[in-house]
């Protein structure tokens, strides 16, 4: 039982450490949605953003390569649902100025009430959406 929680905890600590180092060294909040949007929309002083994103993708690859852990199974839901979900996520994170990393990991670290409210909101609708998909509609992912 303990073992099962060790990788998530270690992963969480690593994510937290990354966020702290980014703040200490670069002076920036590790909010992935903001970093990704500013990178593609051509904000000023963008080099660090592209390198962070390169690391974000490469870090996962390195983890699987070193640990020999196989890639997780693809989500059985088809690409139309994936596209619909992506659209909602993309619009939502821009309007709400952040996602799990910016509001959750970093915003809570800054003891921001705004981020706490946002985190409570997206956790609630996330849980509700899964409830509806799995237990009301009975289909979905």
């Amino acid at each position: 039982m303990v073992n099962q929680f060790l990788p998530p905890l270690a992963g969480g600590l690593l994510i937290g450490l990354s966020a702290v180092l980014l703040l200490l060294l670069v002076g920036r909040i590790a909010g992935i949605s903001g970093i990704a949007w500013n990178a593609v929309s051509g904000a000023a002083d963008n080099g660090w953003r592209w390198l962070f994103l390169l690391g974000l993708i490469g870090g996962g690859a390195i983890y699987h390569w070193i640990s020999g852990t196989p890639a997780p199974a693809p989500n059985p839901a088809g690409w139309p649902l994936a596209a619909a979900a992506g659209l909602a996520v993309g619009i939502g994170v821009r309007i709400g100025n952040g996602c799990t990393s910016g509001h959750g990991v970093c915003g809570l670290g800054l003891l921001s009430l705004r981020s706490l409210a946002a985190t409570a909101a997206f956790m609630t609708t996330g849980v509700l959406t899964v409830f509806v998909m799995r237990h009301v509609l009975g289909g979905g992912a």
Partner: protein
Amino acid sequence: MKALAALICGLMFGAGLALSGMTDTAKVLGFLDLFGDWVPDLAFVMGGAVAVTTVTFTLVLRRQTPVFAQTFSLPQTQAIDGRLMTGAALFGLGWGLYGYCPGPGLTALIYGHTGTLAFVVSMFAGMWLAARWQQGRSS
């Protein structure tokens, strides 16, 4: 040095996401399935990460400046308004539909799954739409 630091932070973040199970939509959806067969594992991801940031952020911010940059760039907005709540709620809906938030979606691109690619392309399209809409409102 700033660029190198950003790259290393990104690598740690991506490795953390893959190690934690956040790039596995089955685990994420299982975690969000609070009223079904709940999989509690991923609570430790957020718990671990937030434990680190709450303890260390205040210590870091006692410094005048970051190590490799001129200033700390921190969010200035504090309002808890309809816009924030609508956006966060919509984001949660998308998260619960497929199981990815932005970071894990990007990291999971390396698995080469078609659905992930559709998710990420669509996510950027959504960001673009929202940015256009917000520009239209402010001008």
